[in-house]
């Protein structure tokens, strides 16, 4: 990392980041508190950030709590992921107008908007990169996703306070970012001083940084920021030993242990909804009552549903254990065969939002042990 390019912004000047982004025409989305959780939504000012909030997570539990420090990014992770804004849960793909015995397709209006994401965690940044491979870089791609990505400005935030369910270190996705961002921040709070060490990762990032009051970072500030991220790496709540795990999973496809997990799993699919890399979707074709207009829509789907694998006569994966197995094996093993990396980034959301607290690190570890 080029330390010469790092600067410092004071807390009091943070609003300037929002102003600079707005001036450039970006629609800003970032974390904010709503319904007892930190979620991502459109925000206009720094005051809408979860100032002074943090959260406590366990398997199957999320509690928003007040922090002693008035940090802007002191929380860990909420249930929303950025994929909600790049690959919407529901989208009209096209509309068709009946004409005689045929029909004409009118492609849905999708004006790609300029978006800025403020507060992207390193694990989330990696997840966006993972989804790029599927939704943008394959032989067939989603045109809207590609357009949104081209017009996306990312303000990443390094982690200094990991959670109980975090294991980004095991997945090489944190707690610090190295590239893929426009701006990256590390929030430093030590009672009297509250500032951000910031660096630009792109030309667009530099341009915005110019518009924010900033000064070169002092060597001790840089050292402290680096140490804070290093400390975070040693405070991971969980870990997942990835060594040889792909082969172990492939070889233990028939293990009875899957049935043991299935005794707890409700196949509710929460994990797929909160996972930043899950991309499965359903395509639905409908008409209006009159029949003169038809629509094709895309919805998020989950491999946990019984008819996900339905073909005439029945579902291939009719049992609950086969569906849990499909999700875990896809996330950790099949994904590597398909896209060259695991699909998991260690954000821990699946552990937090599972109603029964099933822990992917624990289960994968158990399969390894029983192998």
């Amino acid at each position, binding site marked *: 990392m080029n330390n010469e390019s790092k600067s410092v912004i004071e807390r009091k000047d943070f609003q300037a980041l929002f102003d600079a982004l707005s001036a450039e025409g970006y629609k800003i989305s970032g974390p904010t508190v709503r319904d007892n959780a930190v979620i991502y939504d459109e925000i206009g000012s720094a005051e809408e950030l979860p100032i002074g909030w943090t959260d406590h997570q366990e398997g199957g539990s999320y509690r928003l709590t007040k922090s002693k420090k008035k940090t802007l990014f002191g929380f860990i992770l909420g249930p929303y992921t950025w994929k909600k804004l790049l690959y919407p849960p529901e989208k009209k*793909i096209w509309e068709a107008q009946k004409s005689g015995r*045929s*029909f004409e397709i009118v*492609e849905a209006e999708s004006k790609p908007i300029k978006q800025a994401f403020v507060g992207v965690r390193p694990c989330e940044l990696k997840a966006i990169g993972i989804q790029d491979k599927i939704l943008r870089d394959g032989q*067939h791609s989603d045109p809207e996703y590609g357009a949104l990505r081209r017009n996306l400005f990312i303000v990443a935030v390094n982690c200094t306070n990991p959670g109980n369910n975090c294991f980004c270190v095991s997945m090489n996705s944190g707690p610090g970012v190295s590239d893929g961002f426009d701006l990256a921040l590390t929030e430093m709070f030590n009672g009297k001083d509250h500032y951000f060490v910031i660096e630009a990762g792109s030309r667009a990032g530099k341009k915005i940084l110019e518009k924010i009051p900033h000064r070169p970072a002092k060597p001790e500030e840089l050292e402290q920021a680096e140490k804070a991220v290093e400390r975070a790496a040693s405070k991971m709540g969980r870990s997942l030993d990835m060594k040889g795990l792909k082969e172990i999973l492939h070889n233990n496809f028939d293990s009875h242990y899957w049935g043991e997990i299935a005794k707890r799993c409700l196949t509710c699919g929460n994990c797929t909804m909160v996972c930043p890399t899950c*991309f499965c*979707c359903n395509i639905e074709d409908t008409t209006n009552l009159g029949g003169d207009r038809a629509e094709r829509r895309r919805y998020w789907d989950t491999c946990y549903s019984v008819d996900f694998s*339905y073909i005439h006569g029945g579902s291939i994966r009719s049992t609950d254990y086969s569906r849990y197995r*499909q999700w875990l094996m896809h996330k950790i093993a099949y994904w590597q065969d398909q896209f060259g990396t695991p699909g998991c980034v260690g954000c821990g959301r699946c552990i937090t939002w599972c109603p029964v607290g099933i822990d992917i690190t624990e289960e994968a570890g158990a399969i390894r042990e029983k192998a």
Partner: protein
Amino acid sequence: MFMAKMQNKSKTSDISLIDPMLVQAYTIQRVVRETFDTFSLELEPQSGGGEFKFAPGQFNMLYVYGVGEVPISISGDPSKEKPLIHTTRAVGTVTKAMKNLKVGDTIGIRGPYGSSWPVKEAEGYDVVIVAGGIGLAPLRPVLYYLLQRRNKYGRIVLLYGTRTPEDMLYRKQLEKWRSRFDLETYLTVDRATGSWRGNVGVVTTLIGRAPFDPLHSVAVVCGPEIMMRYTVLELLKRGVDEEKTYISMERNMKCGIGLCGHCQLGSSFVCKDGPVYRYDNIKHAFTMWEM
């Protein structure tokens, strides 16, 4: 994973550069009732020409206005630009709606997608084609292709088994093929009805006696999964190499282009890495239940 090279892309897939979910409108020129629940649609594109080229084994996504989309193998002659032919059974919402369509109605097409039968790789070999039930539909393009280049192949053998004689597809064509001297056609039924005087027994019973050299053969098999499983076992027993045996898999597909995740079979996407697979690359899927 084995991936066959796709032949010339069709005009339809040029649209995919813009949006791969857009469909092209085709008009039904002819409806052929093959059996009591199976029918063939012969289609031609609506907006002017546009050559549709496909490789034997590939499939299209067929859209019925307002109802939905399903993946169906292409069953016509790959050397003819039109008509585009699809043979299917009416088993679900979309295919049942399709069965009610008439000549002049419209079907939306996206494709061609997927891997194809190894017709080039089989040059110089005997070719054994084993079809079960409606499995003859994705294999018919292979027959067209091979017979148009007859001297490039050794013996060509077609083994076809159905439930009853009334379930046989393409009957007129079967008769023509049977009368050819450069093609051996063997038919069998699980259940004899009426005046059937031919073979009675499952399709695997034809393999032992069929005239081909297992050490120099390429086998292509299509039909219900159980039928393919037993057929491959019988072929391997006779000495055919598992690296020269190909099957066609089927899974739930919503997009056909590798983005919806539904068709996954272990690490492979049946819409991209299949539906045609070389047996040794996919044999694990036959021994692992609910993969």
